[in-house]
C-alpha cells in the first residue's frame, strides 16, 4: 500500500475512529492511534457529565484498523466478533493504541487478533473476522 494507509479507509470523516497509523506491514500487522477528546460528538450523550468511549466504538476502531490490512480497495463488512473483552474505561485524554495482526483466513474471510491499549495497559481485545465483498461470489455454505 502506497502513501498513507489511512487514505484507504472507506469510512467518511464522521465515522472514522482511528487518527493515525504508526506501523504498517501490508496484510500482516498494523498499529493505529486514536486520541479520545472531549469534542468527540458521541461522548456528549455517552454519558452526560461522565464521558466514556463506548465499547462498541472501541470495537469499531479495532475493526477499522484491521480493515487497513485487507487488499487496497477492498470493500469489507464485519462478519464475526469473538472473545471481545473490555477491560478498562477509555475516557477523554486517553490515546488508544490499536494493534491488529492478521491470523489466517479462508476465501473472502480474514481473521484478526486485535488489542487496544491505553498507556501500555490492555483496554480491550477481540478476535475479528472481516468478509471482503466479492461480487458474484457465494460463501462456502452455498457452494454447490
Amino acid at each position: 500500500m502506497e502513501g498513507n494507509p489511512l487514505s484507504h479507509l472507506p469510512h467518511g470523516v464522521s465515522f472514522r475512529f482511528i487518527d493515525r497509523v504508526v506501523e504498517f506491514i501490508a496484510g500482516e500487522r498494523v498499529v493505529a492511534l486514536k486520541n479520545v477528546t472531549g469534542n468527540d460528538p458521541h461522548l456528549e450523550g455517552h454519558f452526560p457529565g461522565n464521558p466514556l468511549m463506548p465499547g462498541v466504538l472501541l470495537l469499531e476502531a479495532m475493526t477499522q484498523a484491521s480493515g487497513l490490512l485487507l487488499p487496497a480497495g477492498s470493500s469489507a463488512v464485519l462478519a464475526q466478533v469473538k472473545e471481545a473483552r473490555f477491560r478498562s474505561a477509555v475516557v477523554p485524554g486517553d490515546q488508544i493504541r490499536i494493534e491488529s495482526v492478521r491470523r489466517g483466513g479462508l476465501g473472502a474471510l480474514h481473521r484478526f487478533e486485535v488489542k487496544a491499549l491505553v498507556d501500555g495497559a490492555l483496554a480491550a481485545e477481540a478476535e475479528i473476522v472481516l468478509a471482503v465483498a466479492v461480487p458474484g461470489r457465494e460463501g462456502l455454505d452455498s457452494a454447490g
Partner: protein
Amino acid sequence: MNEIAQRVRILLATRLKLAKAVEEITDQTPLFGPLGLGLDSIDALELVLGLEKEFGVVVEDRATAVKVLASIQTIAEFIQSQGKG
C-alpha cells in the same frame, strides 16, 4: 481412521459448539448446505483454524476447503493423506 474421525467430531463439538448436533450425524453427513449440518463460511474458517491447530494440516484455499470440509469422513481422509493424525 475411526480414531481420526472421532477427533474431528470432538473438534466440531468443541470449537463450533455443536456437541448435540454432532451426535446426530454420520461421518458421511454433509457439513454444509441445507441437507446437512448447515455450517456456514465463518464456521469453515473456524474449522480450518482448528484443523491446523489440532492436526497440523493446512487447508490452503477455498477450493480445497469445499472438497476437504464436505463431511467428517472427507476431513479424516484429508488428515490421513497428509500423514497427520
